[in-house]
Structure formats: structure tokens, C-alpha cells
């Protein structure tokens, strides 16, 4: 038996979520009294692979076949299922992000496994296997029993603390069988941001709403993000207006994020916006309207003009850091 973790790298470096996942998986392995195996697909150095061992991976399977340079759902599904069979995995863990959402349901069907999508903590029990997940876009939670022998889980990002848990982390090259017929998509172009913090992976996010009045005022948001090492986000009307790019829109119909700190400036706090950020640990709201619904969900609030408050916040944080 084992718990198999699907990791993701970003230009050869593991994403923060992958360390979260390995930490999480090794805890489940402890509950089941078994070992943790991490699967890595892509070009990752041995040293970086070994980092997974620090967070609880007993073994690391590394696939470097170039045909996997781009995500091809059927081909990846087959590799993961082969790895799971080889390691007799009884639990498979993915991140609840773009890649995890693309692969976990396919893998679940292929392995006759029940899927627990978007879990936010360790299973409440392993007999029966009961998971906890958000439902109704964060307005409630559900306890769900997975009845099958093999279980597939996707873990909400930022919902489990990375822990140090040094294990062997032996790296093993894995050469799965590859079916050429699985490669049906051709990548024609890639536009990737580099050097910027990825919104869904960010620990701190600074976000602006319609109350920021216009694209010309975003300097303050960017400056605050800069001093905090944060990513920037926005509400839907802001991206609809074209003040900010669409990939920054958070909410029910945009990105769903769960950072440690979310600073909402000039955002009213509509239920659809909150649905995208309800997993945030600490939410700060800056709004001129003391009755804005955002204050019902915020941990800290300032009633005031964001255009005035943000620069003062920047100054305060600079002072703190110096």
C-alpha cells in the first residue's frame, strides 16, 4: 500500500502547493500506516526532487519523457494510473488547481476510485474514509464518505501547512508505457508570466474593486503588493471594465484562492466575490461605506478612502520591514 502524490513543477522548481501536498499525503500515510510516494513529471534536478523527501516523501518517481512537456490529460492519466498500480496506492492526492482538476476525475474513473474534490483538511476518519470539503461555494461544508477501496483526493490550496518531516526521498526513474494515440492536442503558443507571483500560489494578495475608481489608481495596489511580496487581484467589474487583466478576477466565476492574507480595497463584498476568497486566513477590508457587506467577512477593517489608506499602508509596512 501507499499514498501517491502528484506534484507539479514550475520551470523545474516545485510549486509551494506540491510541498503542501506531500506534507498532507505523508500525514494520511501515517494514518494508514503506510508510505508516501511522490510522482514528478518533467525536468527536475535530483536536488530539487530530494526536497520532496524533506516534507515526507519516502520515494520519488521521476518521469522525464519529453512527450510530457505539455499537459495531455489522457496521457498523464495513464502515467499516474501506472504509477499507482506499481506502488499499490490506496489514496492518490492532487492539488485542487487547474492541473489537479483536469486529471483527478479521469484518474478516479480509470482506477475505479471515489473522488473527494476540494478537501480542506485531513480525513476525519479512515474507516469509513470520511473527508471534509467546502460546498455551495464556501457557504457550507460537507462531510463525505468515500466508499471505494481506492480514493482520489484534491486538496484546496493553502489549506494545509507545509511541515518538515525528513524521509528517505529515494529518487527512482520511472519509464511508463506511453500510448501515442493519447496525444491529441498540439500546443501552438504559450504565454507565461515570468518573475511574477502566481495568484493561485500566492500567500498574500492585494485586490482592488470598483471603489478604486479607475485603472490609473492601481499604482497604489501594485506598490503595496510589491512591498508585501504579494500577487494582485481584482473584482469582476474591474476586469470587465478592462482596468485589470481577466486573469486577476477572483470570485465564483473567476479564480478561487485561499491566501494567508487578502487585502480588499474598494470591494463591496458581494457573495459571488467572497465565494472566491472564503478560504482566506486573514481578510482586510478598506471601504468608504461602513455598512459594506465586506466587513461582515473581514477580520480587520478600515472605513476610509482606499486611495488615501493604501499609500499609508505601504509606508507603514516599509517602516516595519526596515
Amino acid at each position, binding site marked *: 500500500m501507499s499514498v501517491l502524490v502528484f506534484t507539479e513543477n514550475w520551470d523545474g522548481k516545485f510549486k509551494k502547493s506540491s510541498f503542501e501536498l506531500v506534507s498532507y499525503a505523508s500525514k494520511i500515510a501515517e494514518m494508514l500506516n503506510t508510505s508516501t510516494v511522490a510522482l514528478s513529471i518533467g525536468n527536475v534536478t535530483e536536488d530539487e526532487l530530494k526536497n520532496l523527501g524533506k516534507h515526507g516523501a519516502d520515494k520519488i518517481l521521476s518521469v522525464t519523457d519529453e512527450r510530457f512537456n505539455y499537459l495531455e490529460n489522457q496521457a498523464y492519466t495513464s502515467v499516474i494510473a501506472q504509477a499507482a498500480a506499481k506502488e499499490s496506492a490506496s489514496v492518490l492526492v492532487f492539488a485542487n488547481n487547474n492541473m489537479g482538476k483536469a486529471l483527478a*476525475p479521469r484518474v478516479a474513473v480509470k482506477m475505479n476510485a471515489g473522488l473527494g474534490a476540494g478537501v480542506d483538511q485531513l480525513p476525519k476518519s479512515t474507516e469509513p474514509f470520511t473527508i471534509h470539503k467546502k460546498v455551495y461555494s464556501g457557504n*457550507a461544508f460537507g462531510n463525505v464518505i468515500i466508499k471505494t477501496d481506492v480514493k482520489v483526493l484534491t486538496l484546496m490550496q493553502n489549506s494545509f501547512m507545509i511541515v518538515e518531516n525528513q524521509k528517505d526521498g529515494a529518487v527512482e526513474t520511472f519509464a511508463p508505457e506511453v500510448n501515442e494515440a493519447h496525444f491529441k492536442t498540439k500546443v501552438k503558443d*504559450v504565454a507565461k508570466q515570468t518573475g511574477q507571483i502566481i495568484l493561485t500560489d500566492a500567500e498574500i494578495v492585494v485586490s482592488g474593486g470598483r471603489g478604486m475608481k479607475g485603472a490609473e489608481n492601481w499604482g497604489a495596489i501594485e506598490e503595496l503588493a510589491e512591498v508585501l511580496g504579494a500577487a494582485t487581484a481584482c473584482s469582476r467589474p474591474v476586469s470587465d471594465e478592462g482596468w485589470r487583466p481577466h486573469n486577476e478576477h477572483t470570485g465564483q*466565476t473567476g479564480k478561487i484562492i485561499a491566501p494567508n*492574507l487578502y487585502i480588499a480595497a474598494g470591494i463591496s463584498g458581494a457573495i459571488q466575490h467572497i465565494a472566491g476568497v472564503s478560504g482566506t486566513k486573514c481578510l482586510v477590508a478598506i471601504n468608504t461605506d461602513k455598512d459594506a457587506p465586506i466587513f461582515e467577512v473581514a477580520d480587520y477593517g478600515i472605513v476610509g478612502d482606499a486611495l488615501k489608506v493604501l499609500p499609508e499602508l505601504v509606508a*507603514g509596512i516599509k*517602516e516595519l520591514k526596515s
Partner: protein
Amino acid sequence: MKILICLSNVPDTTTKIKFTDDNTKFDETGVQWVINPWDELALTRALELKEDAGANVEKVTVINVGLANTEPTIRKALAIGADDAIRVNAEPKDAFFVASQIANAIKDQGFDIIINGIESSDFNGSAVGGMLAEMLDLPSVSAVSAMKVENGAIVIDREIDGGKEVLSIETPFLAVVQKGIALEPRIAAMRGIMMARKKPLTIIEAVDVQAMTDFVAYEMPQPKPPCKMVDADNVKDLVNLLHNEAKVI
């Protein structure tokens, strides 16, 4: 080309979520049911493609797994412009159950593109699309934010963390779509509503499939402590609180 849209029937996004029967059942009292927002955008995009002569779409079908009470939602999709509809007569038990029902209902129908929304706003599973693709042994592309037909070829934008990829793919395939696929959901016009009544809605009996998961109990989020207010003249206090109390900076 024939396009299929999988529709989920969900509570309106502003619904106050409540449960009954000792927190084991969703309280449907007074709930307005709507087409899941992403499925509505998927339908909108499919109709736009149908109107584009170059795309060569002959038919847009919608399918829902649900009991008779989901028919108003299905009719709404027909009113917006879908050509016909299928309802698999069963209470949706879990994603695996729903995907199995859809796979069975459409397996011989030769759809060229099957589109699912990224998640349904009730169980947030993001699962039916991927499961269905695996069951039908179809290629799938997830996180799709644009879909076009260029000189007869399908061109797709796929969101990746911090960017996007442009892909081409041959039919048949399944797409799981999200933000960007269409700008605003299309609204049914009076004429559409009238026509929807006459459009075909086929009812298919469910096949015997066991769900793989059981919802045992719901929980409401813990009531959170009230928001701590900081005076706008003392922004530094906020910095201190974030540093010393919340320990997030």
C-alpha cells in the same frame, strides 16, 4: 458539427444556504433554481459558434441528470437557444453517478464537442467533465477560456498558472470551460421562450449505477469573530495588528 452542453441545475448564486433534517439535507424552501453559471456561459459560446457560418455547427444539445423538477431550467436553456434537450430521469447522487448517466445516454450519438462548466456551484466538484471524458475514452482539455474555429480547426486557450497556452485539437473531444469562454450569458428573449415549448426534450431512464460517495452531514461555517475596526487616521495600527496579532506579515 454537433455540440453537447452538460447542464447542472443549481440554487441561484445569492441563495442563503440552509439545511434540514439534522443538517443532512439541503433546504430547498424558497430556492430559485438556475442553470449553473459556467454551463450557461458554455451554452452561450456554443450558440455563438453555431451562428458563425465558418464554424459549421449544425446542432446544440443540452443534457441534464435530474428529476422532473429540473425541467424549468432545461426549458430555459432551450429558450436561450439550444436546439434540443435530454433529461436523464434520476436524482443526481454524485459526480460519478452523473457522469455515468450522461455517458450512457449519449454514447452512440456522435457529439463532436462536449462541454462542461468547470464546477457546479453546489458541490464544487469540478469532476463530471473529466470523468465523462474518461468513460467515453475521449481526449479532454480543462481550464478552457476560449474556443474558436479557424479554417475548420478547433483552437482553444487553456489557462495555466500565470499564463495560457493556445492549443489545437481534433474532434471529438471534451472541454471543461471556465471564465472567459463567453463574456456575458445570453438571456432568453420572448420569442425564444415561446419556441422553447415546442423544442424536443427527450427523457431517458437512468441506468443502474452505484454512487461512490455519500454525503453524510453538512456544516455551516463557524461564526467568525466580528471585524476589528481600525481608525483611518491610524493605519499603522493595522500594520501592527497584522504583524503581531494575525502574524501574516
